[in-house]
């Protein structure tokens, strides 16, 4: 879990402030210690160590902060560059005054200390001490002379009774203490002006050695309870190896003055000796203060920069998040009511409004998408082909019905010009020109009818154009396949014609026939030239029979079909039919369908096969080498499994003008026949959901292709795929 940066910064600030406060107090104590505060002077070194450690910790903390800052700078984190710049600026701003103060303070301090030890003062102190010594030297010489006399007197009088006499000697020379010592420094006799002093002041061995080597020693000594200045005189008697020591008092004034001079000189000498240490000590303290001020300023710079730039950095990160699409970003107000607070508040408002707008846009988009899907579904399930074309005539969209009914893969032609697509699809040039004129003109509302050769044969289409509202220049082209409708209308019309013909013609035929037969029975052989009667009545009866057959055909065509499908082996049915034509030498069979079943009406299918074979044989009648080839196979196309029967002949073929309407009633080129054969065939094939196509074979003759769905395949074969040669035509 990420630590709250502001809280983290606050905790660190508290710790740093605590450290800085402790250091400040410590520096203050150290400063007092340097000023010779008796209480604090003993804490000087611990305070020095504490301050050094404190500064070290501060340096480490600053170092860590700077390292993080540099790392952030190198990683190009938001705000790092600005923070570093501010830190450098703040540091420089603080370094300059602190450095100036430090420099001049040091100068002042060092010169101040040096001024204490002026050469004149130094000389004066030396002179004062020399003066003191000189003033005492005269007295020393007199006292030495006096002590020498006393020694001679003592030697002359001998050591006997010395203990008794020594006091008088001391009184005579007015000494504070008079002592006679042997060669080892042991006291032989001593007298002190103070009777209470029982132990004589024995000089140290060094003084005695000096006295022995030089014969005498004269020096100053502090003596007595008051430590008054005395002149110590020791004279040695080389003959007896005895020493006479006399301690002569100086006057109290001389003693006090000498002591004061000595103390002053000693203090001055001490200070002079400590001059370097003093400088170092003050410099060290000042340096610590400088470092404290500097590091505090650096830390304050880092802290201030972070604190100041924190909202800006957050704002930068939030802006980046918004740019990346995250509109949920909200910033915490820094408070204080300044410009930053206003900026953060504005940013939050902005992101909130963007989020609302985005949600609104998403909802709208969703609605549009739903609408689009609805329309798409609607278009996909329309039987009408719908094509949209932009203002440049480029294909934009086409529903699946358009592809199916027009036999064009519009997805593969997306973005192509509709004229190019139309030409590839073999649309009539006249129709293409009409379309061009529609999208080039302002009159978009047009409609018409066009015949287009598709993969599944020539089809009749009702087309309409309209402009697309909301899309400037877009054109919507709609196609309705009306081939079936037209055919149904034709079939209906022909059925009506056939029914009326059958009704109107069939009724008078029987009386005509009966009348002819009656004339024949009554007058044949009874009138002259009965050959004419015989031929005429015979012709009437024969033609009436023929007309009856034709009327029956019309009647069959018009009569509603009774369709009884069942699964049957198609090839067996074909073989049965072919058995009736066993004598026809022109027939050649190549049957490969095996036992494949079709769902069909055996009677009707037999009628179809009879009709087709009969037509083929009639087509090759009179040809030198007549040939009718019948081939069967089982094939599959577009997921539909079907049996295909091909009947090829080498006859004259179909009249090209008739080719498009051979399956229409009364469309025949034969001298005999009603022209209903292929129409009935087409009707039966349609009832079986199959397909039948006719074409002229390239070397000559005709080819008829019959396709029937394999049993159980009916759903997959709607519509029945057209044969390849139809696509190539």
């Amino acid at each position, binding site marked *: 879990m990420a630590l709250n940066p502001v809280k983290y910064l606050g905790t660190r600030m508290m710790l740093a402030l605590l450290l800085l406060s402790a250091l400040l107090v410590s520096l203050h104590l150290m400063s007092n*210690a*340097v000023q*010779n505060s008796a209480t604090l*002077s*003993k804490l*000087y*070194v611990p305070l*020095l160590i504490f301050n050094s450690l404190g500064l070290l910790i501060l340096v480490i903390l600053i170092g860590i902060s700077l390292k993080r800052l540099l790392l952030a700078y190198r990683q190009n984190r938001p705000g790092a560059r600005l923070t570093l710049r501010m830190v450098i600026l703040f540091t420089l701003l603080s370094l300059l005054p602190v450095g100036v103060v430090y420099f001049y303070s040091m100068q002042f301090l060092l010169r101040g200390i040096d001024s204490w030890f002026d050469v004149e003062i130094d000389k004066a102190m030396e002179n004062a*001490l020399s003066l*003191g*010594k000189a003033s005492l030297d005269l007295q020393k010489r007199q006292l030495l002379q006096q002590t020498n006399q006393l020694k001679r007197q003592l030697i002359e009088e001998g050591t006997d009774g010395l203990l008794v006499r020594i006091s008088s000697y001391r009184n005579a020379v007015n000494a504070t203490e008079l002592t006679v010592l042997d060669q080892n420094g042991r006291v032989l006799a001593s007298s002190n002006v103070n009777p209470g002093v029982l132990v004589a002041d024995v000089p*140290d*061995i*060094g*003084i005695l050695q*000096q006295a022995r080597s030089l014969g005498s020693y004269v*020096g*100053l*000594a*502090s003596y007595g309870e008051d*430590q008054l200045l005395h002149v110590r005189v020791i004279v040695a008697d080389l003959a007896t190896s005895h020493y006479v020591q006399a301690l002569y008092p100086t006057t109290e004034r001389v003693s006090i003055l*000498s002591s004061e*001079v*000595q103390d002053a*000189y*000693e*203090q001055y*000498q*001490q200070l*002079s*000796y*400590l001059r370097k*240490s*003093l400088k*170092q*000590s003050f410099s*060290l303290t000042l340096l610590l203060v400088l470092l404290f001020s500097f590091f505090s300023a650096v830390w304050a710079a880092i802290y201030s920069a972070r604190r100041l730039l924190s909202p800006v950095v957050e704002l930068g990160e939030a802006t980046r998040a918004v740019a990346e699409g995250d509109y949920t970003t909200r910033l915490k107000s820094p408070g204080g009511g300044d410009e930053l607070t206003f900026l953060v508040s504005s940013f939050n408002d902005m992101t909130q409004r963007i989020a609302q707008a985005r949600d609104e846009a998403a909802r709208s988009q969703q609605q549009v998408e739903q609408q689009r899907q609805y329309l798409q579904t609607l278009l996909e399930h329309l039987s009408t082909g719908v094509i949209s074309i932009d203002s440049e005539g480029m294909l934009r969209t086409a529903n699946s019905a358009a592809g199916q009914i027009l036999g064009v893969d519009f997805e593969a032609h997306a973005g192509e010009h509709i004229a190019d697509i139309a030409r590839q699809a073999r649309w009539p040039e006249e129709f293409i020109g009409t379309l061009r004129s529609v999208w080039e003109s302002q009159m978009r509302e047009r409609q018409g009818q066009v015949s287009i050769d598709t993969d599944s044969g020539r089809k009749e289409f009702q087309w309409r154009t309209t402009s697309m509202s909301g899309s400037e220049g877009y054109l919507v082209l709609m196609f309705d396949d009306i081939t079936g409708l037209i055919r149904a209308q034709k079939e209906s019309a022909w059925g009506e014609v056939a029914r009326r013909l059958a009704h109107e013609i069939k009724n008078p035929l029987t009386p005509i026939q009966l009348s002819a037969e009656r004339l024949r029975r009554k007058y044949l052989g009874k009138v002259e030239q009965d050959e004419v009667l015989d031929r005429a009545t015979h012709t009437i009866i024969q033609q009436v029979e023929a007309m009856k057959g034709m009327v029956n055909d019309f009647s069959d065509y018009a009569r509603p079909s009774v369709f009884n499908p069942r699964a049957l082996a198609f090839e067996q049915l074909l073989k049965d039919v072919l058995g009736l034509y066993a004598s026809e030498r022109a027939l050649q069979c190549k049957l490969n369908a095996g036992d494949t079943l079709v769902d069909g009406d055996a009677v009707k299918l037999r009628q179809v096969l009879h009709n087709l074979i009969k037509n083929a044989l009639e087509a090759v009648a009179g040809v030198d080498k007549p040939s009718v080839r019948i081939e069967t196979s089982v094939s599959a196309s577009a997921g539909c499994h079907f049996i295909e029967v091909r009947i090829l002949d080498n006859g004259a073929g179909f009249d090209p003008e008739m080719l498009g309407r051979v399956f229409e009633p009364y469309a025949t080129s034969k001298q005999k026949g009603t022209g209903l054969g292929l129409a009935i065939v087409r009707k039966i094939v349609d009832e079986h959901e199959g397909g039948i196509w006719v074409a002229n074979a390239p070397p000559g003759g005709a080819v008829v292709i019959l396709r029937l769905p394999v049993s159980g395949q009916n759903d997959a074969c709607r519509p029945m795929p057209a044969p390849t040669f139809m696509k190539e035509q």
Partner: protein
Amino acid sequence: MRVRWLLCLLSFWAGSIMAGQIDIQETRVWLQGERYLLDADLAYELDDGIMEALDNGIPVVFTISLVVEEASLISPELASDRLDYHIRFRPLTAFYEVTGPAGEQRSFITRAALFAYLGELREVPLVDVAVLEKGASYRYRMKVELDIESLPLPMRPMAWFSPVWNLSSGWKEWPLIP
């Protein structure tokens, strides 16, 4: 860089060896009346730097610490004492003046005499007989050192980190059997 550091360390180490020393050469404990007294022979070898400071009026204090304790693991302290010897140089008389623990003053014209005096510690009261049990094992410890805290303040930081001024005999102990 490494060679420079090594030389620095070596010079510091050599300086610490040649900086002078205080050695407790011999101690004797003897009974006088109801109290054990201590005699000790000490050897002071001071660096010239200290002597220079002394001759320039810097007072120097030697502290002798004495502790008597039971010779056991816990070692409870039975008696302790601290003896301070203040030494200063008097420029007018050219004497080294020593002020003892009891305030007694002695002056010496030479350093040899000064340290001879300081080196002979005689009849220092150690512990009362009554404090000790007959037959029990005790020990007494002794340490002699230069008191840096008594130096003038400006000298202390330098003295703290200088081997010249960090003079101490270290604790030395001897058995004490009543």
